[in-house]
Structures are given as structure tokens and as C-alpha cells.
């Protein structure tokens, strides 16, 4: 392999290490399990390394790595077929409904509620809400339409609000039409699709 590039650090492989922490965080939000997350990151690194020529230098390597990571996650999950059933709400029954005294979300409750969201909502919320991806970047990373990402983020937020029993006066702030439509459809049909 020709390694003679203009600059020593022009090899994109050298950049992978920079994204390790973010990959672990993203993997954890998908797997909800530390050792599974690290296994997923390991597989992602190996695939990225072996397919590095498919990475277009100058584009967003983090998004590229995340795409590999999530594709690996969903492909593994399809193979094993486990866990799919428990995502949509079975565990949610055990969730504490009580907000803190001051109405703010306790972190433990928040993390529990987050872990019970469908994976598509978890990844959308993680990318957009936590990591500051634009809707467009998140859509590209997840290979779906921008509108799909927006809808997943919205549904995820609505379900977190509902699961955490956030107070009415705060709830009233969620008044934009699309959000209310999601709330109403969620509540009237009890549907928990992604």
C-alpha cells in the first residue's frame, strides 16, 4: 500500500482514534450495555480500517464511523433477533412515573426512560440532541430522510416527557402542532412505533 502522502497525517486511519470516545458513547446509546458497546466499537474500528478507501477525505469521519457502527448494530440485531421484543414498552411498565419534587428529571429516571425508547429514537436523539448533529447530518448517518429523523427526535422527546411524567405547566410548552399531533396519536393509539 502506498503510504507516501503529502503529509504524514494524511492517512485517515490515523484519525479513527480521535473518535473513539464518541463511538463508545454512541454505541452505548444503542446497545445499552457497556461490554456490548465496546464489542460494537471494536467491530466498527476493524470494518472502518479495512474499508478506509471508501472514506472520502474531507468529509465527516465521525458521521462515517457512526454509519458503520449503527449498520453493524442493526445487522447484528437482525441476526440474533433478540431484544427487539422488549424495546417497545414491556420494560416501560416498571418505569417510575414520579418526577422529582422540583419537577426536574432525575438523571437515573431519565436514563431509564431513554433506554426504553426504540433504538431508532435513541440514536436520533443522541445524534441531534446530545451531539449537535444537524438533522441533515443525522439523516445521512442513518440513511433515512430528514423528515424521518425529525419525526424520530420528536417522538423520542414526547415519549421521554410522557415517561417522566413531566408537569403540566411545563407540558403546555409543547404546543407546536406537529408535537401535539404526535402526543395525541401516541396517547390515543398507544402505538409505540419508531
Amino acid at each position, binding site marked *: *500500500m502506498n503510504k507516501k502522502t503529502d503529509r504524514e497525517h494524511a492517512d485517515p*486511519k490515523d484519525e*479513527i*482514534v480521535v473518535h*473513539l*470516545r*464518541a463511538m*463508545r*458513547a454512541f454505541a*452505548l*446509546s444503542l446497545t445499552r450495555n457497556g461490554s456490548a458497546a*465496546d464489542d460494537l*466499537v*471494536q467491530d466498527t*474500528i*476493524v470494518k472502518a*480500517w479495512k474499508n478506509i478507501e471508501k472514506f472520502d477525505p474531507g468529509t465527516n469521519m465521525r458521521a462515517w464511523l457512526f454509519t458503520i457502527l449503527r449498520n453493524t448494530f442493526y445487522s447484528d440485531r437482525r441476526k440474533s433477533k433478540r431484544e427487539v421484543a422488549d424495546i417497545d414498552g414491556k420494560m416501560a411498565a416498571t418505569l417510575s412515573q414520579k418526577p422529582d419534587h422540583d419537577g*426536574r*428529571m432525575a*438523571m437515573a429516571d*431519565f*436514563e431509564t426512560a*431513554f433506554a426504553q425508547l426504540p433504538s431508532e429514537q435513541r440514536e436520533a*436523539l*443522541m445524534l441531534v*440532541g*446530545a*451531539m449537535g448533529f*444537524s*438533522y441533515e447530518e443525522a439523516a445521512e448517518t442513518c440513511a433515512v430522510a430528514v423528515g424521518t429523523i*425529525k419525526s424520530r427526535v420528536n417522538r423520542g*422527546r414526547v415519549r*421521554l*416527557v410522557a415517561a417522566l411524567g*413531566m408537569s403540566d405547566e*411545563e*407540558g403546555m*410548552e*409543547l*404546543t*407546536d402542532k406537529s408535537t401535539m399531533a404526535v402526543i395525541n396519536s401516541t396517547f390515543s393509539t398507544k402505538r409505540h412505533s419508531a
Partner: protein
Amino acid sequence: MDRDKPKSGLERQIDENLRKVYQKTVEEDVPDRFAELLRRLKEQDDSK
């Protein structure tokens, strides 16, 4: 764009919590296995 729309108090609170969840993991030390993996991959390349 929607991103620039002012967020509701709830949205802000949720995103703040999401960032905390993310931050918690990001601040963890990366296990040694990844440095070792990258070193092994590099060695494989070099021996090609």
C-alpha cells in the same frame, strides 16, 4: 431551519439531559483494548 427555532423549556431540559448522558460516557477512559487493536491493525498493514 428547525434547529434555529427556539426550543421549548422541555426540549431544552431533555437535550441537556441527553448531553449529560453522552458526556458521562465520553469522559470515561477508553479501554486499552482499543489502542492495542489499532496497533495490531497497523502492524498487519506494515507486514503487507
